[in-house]
């Protein structure tokens, strides 16, 4: 079986599959860890019970999601070697240390303090516990820093030379780490993670407000989430635009694929809104386009000339239809998220934030939008840099392990079966946790004696706020 299959295509399918599953969890846990730190800080500062209830409520969800992120992440760290050994041999000296620093500065920090964060509130007291929460949140951000640096180096390699064994070696570590696309990608991804979490928190809040608009916890979480959407979604659109301009500078072929620009335009390129990119014919069928708008957006001039894929040898083309469509899905969702933020602001200003069923329905529907946008964005950037693993320098087909197709096909099938079984169960458990509203005296994930908030209220004399709020 599978003898006639292309082992490299199978390995790419396996990496794409395992990566797509994995990215969902960090995208959520980066944002959620920061949200938990904010909730605990608010609890420590104000002593209001609603904050510790929300903290414990989301902490249980965090524990489940984080566990899934850890196990799917260990898979990723070994897959470079098992399936992309030629890539590992050649790039190990450059991106290996970046990933080693991720382990040393981020993974250990998260893992070391996670136990205390999840189970230790009544063992170490609120202040030390807050430190643990903070360390976990900082760990997730440091992790994003290093892994996005490594990814960005693969997209826009800099600061390296090549040795006689054909390996990339660092000439200047600062240039390697802070390679040209890294700052843009880091900002874009961290904002995406925050928005993704805000949309989930907002949807859970909306779900409970739709049933009872007076619940204290859902009101607070809904309001916080909508502030995030209102303020950060426009910033994200701006950051995405800047990231796009950076891509145009360093990876112009990716932009051609994203825009569906098969042909060069001497005096102003159109913006193709929709159409069916036809890779083999080298054109976009049924294109709906706005003349010259493409040049205006990308070059800030109506008549700026723009090169198309006709200037690039065909063997260097990325798969255009996937890149074109995933980009449109990401952008479309981005504007919908900004729309939700704007709508919620209008409702807030008119005092109907907790009463507008339309807003709550909208927020509920947008719950998964962040995940979808993150996946679409990653598919855009990773497909758009094909056919290379290290852009312009190392081709994907030269990166794979010397494995027989049946070996990779077997592992791919095993991953598909196991991931669907395990993560479907995990998502059901998450949804089950989210389906119950947070209540006064909410317990954390501790498997020990339930925490009684009365015993560990930080501000002396703080009065427990009932559900009546």
């Amino acid at each position, binding site marked *: 079986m599978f003898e006639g299959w292309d082992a490299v295509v199978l390995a790419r399918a396996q990496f794409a599959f395992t990566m797509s599953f994995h990215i969902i969890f960090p995208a959520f846990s980066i944002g959620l860890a920061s949200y938990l730190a904010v909730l605990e800080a608010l609890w420590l500062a104000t002593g209001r019970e609603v904050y510790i209830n929300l903290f414990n409520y989301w902490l249980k969800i965090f*524990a*489940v999601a984080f*566990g*899934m992120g850890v*196990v799917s*992440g*260990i*898979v990723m*760290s*070994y897959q*470079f*070697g*098992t*399936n992309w*050994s*030629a890539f*590992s*041999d050649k790039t*190990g*000296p450059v991106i*290996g*240390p970046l990933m*080693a620093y*991720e*382990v*040393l*500065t981020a*993974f*250990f920090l*998260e*893992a*070391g*303090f*996670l*136990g*205390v964060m*999840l*189970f*230790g509130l009544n*063992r*170490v007291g609120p202040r030390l516990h807050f430190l643990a929460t903070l360390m976990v949140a900082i760990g997730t951000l440091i992790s994003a820093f290093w892994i996005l640096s490594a990814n960005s180096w693969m997209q826009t390699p800099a600061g390296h030379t090549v*040795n006689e064994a054909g*390996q990339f*070696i*660092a000439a200047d570590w600062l240039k390697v780490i802070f390679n040209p696309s890294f700052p843009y990608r880091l900002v874009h991804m961290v904002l995406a993670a925050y928005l993704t979490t805000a949309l989930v928190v907002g949807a859970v809040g909306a779900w409970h407000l739709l049933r009872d608009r007076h619940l204290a916890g859902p009101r607070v979480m809904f309001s916080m989430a909508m502030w995030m959407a209102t303020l950060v979604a426009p910033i994200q659109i701006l950051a995405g635009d800047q990231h796009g301009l950076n891509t145009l500078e360093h990876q112009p072929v990716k932009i051609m694929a994203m825009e569906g620009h098969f042909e060069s335009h001497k005096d102003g390129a159109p913006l193709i809104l929709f159409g069916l990119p036809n890779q083999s014919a080298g054109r976009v069928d049924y294109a709906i386009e706005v003349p010259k708008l493409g040049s205006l957006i990308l070059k800030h001039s109506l008549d700026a000339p723009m090169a198309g894929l006709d200037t690039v040898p065909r063997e260097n083309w990325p798969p255009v239809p996937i890149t074109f469509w995933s980009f449109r899905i990401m952008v479309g969702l981005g504007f919908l998220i900004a729309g939700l933020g704007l709508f919620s602001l209008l409702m807030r200003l008119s005092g109907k934030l907790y009463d507008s069923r339309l807003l709550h329905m909208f927020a509920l529907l947008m719950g998964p939008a962040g995940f979808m946008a993150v996946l679409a964005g990653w598919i855009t950037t990773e497909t758009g840099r094909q056919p290379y693993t290290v852009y312009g320098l190392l081709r994907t087909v030269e990166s794979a*392990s*010397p*494995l027989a197709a049946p070996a990779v096909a077997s*592992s791919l099938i*095993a991953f598909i079966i*196991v991931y669907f079984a*395990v993560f479907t*169960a*995990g998502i059901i*458990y998450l949804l*089950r*946790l989210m389906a119950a509203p947070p209540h006064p005296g909410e317990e954390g*994930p501790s*498997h*020990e004696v339930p925490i009684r908030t009365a015993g560990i209220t930080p501000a002396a004399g703080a009065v427990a706020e009932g559900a009546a709020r």
Partner: protein
Amino acid sequence: MIAIDLAIIWAFIIAFAVFVYVVMDGFDLGLGILFPLFPEKRDRDVIMNSVAPVWDGNETWLVLGGGGLMAAFPLAYAVLMPALYTPMIAMLLGLVFRGVAFEFRWRTTKERNRWDIAFFGGSILATLAQGIALGAILQGVHVEGRHYGGGWWDWLTPFSILTGVSLVIGYSLLGATWLVMKTEGALRDRAYHLSWIFLLAMLGAIGAVSIATPFLHVQYTHRWFAWPNILLTAPVPVAVAAVTVLLLRSLANKYDYQPFFLALALFALSYAGLGISMYPYVVPQSITIWQAAAPANSQLFMLVGVAGLIPLILGYTAWAYWVFRGKVKPESGYH
């Protein structure tokens, strides 16, 4: 000259990371392997709680071992991982099952047994795969140029099966002695009983692997038995015998802490034995640590981080263990 020193330093760092992994994840994988021997839900809750706050940190050492190997010895990583393809994938899938079980088993009441089975199955699969991988590395892999040149079932030999089963036994011993340390009453009595059984099995396994290893390559025989090497290697089996006596005594006297730490000592000695067999190869008989080493500036760049951060990591890891020190009380479970 600097490059040579760095390669040796890094060989020790990677060996240290892998050893810390074996020490820390060994006992919690062992607990998973022992799960079917503790059918009571109450006991299982205690076993789970004894390790739930720290398992994630334990597994991070595995990521450091793998990531560190890629960064410091990219050629070895690139040759070994495809050579060990099937055991590696099996290990990763096993770790998925047991890792999610830590949270999932508390999230359901009616299906609880399903995640208990996942915890056991994932633990034993991951352990078996690690042991098989170890055996496959020791017996050597087929290298062509800078690539693995063999097939995807080359790892499967009687020797690799022996090392796989041996590791299952060894982790079970660590798990059983961990329970002696962390539990009380009937649960601890059972753990004592199991410690005896697995200690005897472990001694058999150490003996079998020690006898089989010199037959793999003449170099191993030479390393262990040639003059004057034997002056340096002879203390290892002597120390194994001494630790065994202490361990038997501590079990007979029903000590709480000694059995676990002496079992770790037994692991450390076995591990040192492996190091003696392999050095200076990272892919035995094919690639030395110097041939596989990343350029000096990569190794140096990471060394700065390792020197500064590993002590810090060990510090806050120790703190986390300290916070959750002492016996796990069965009545504390509320789930």
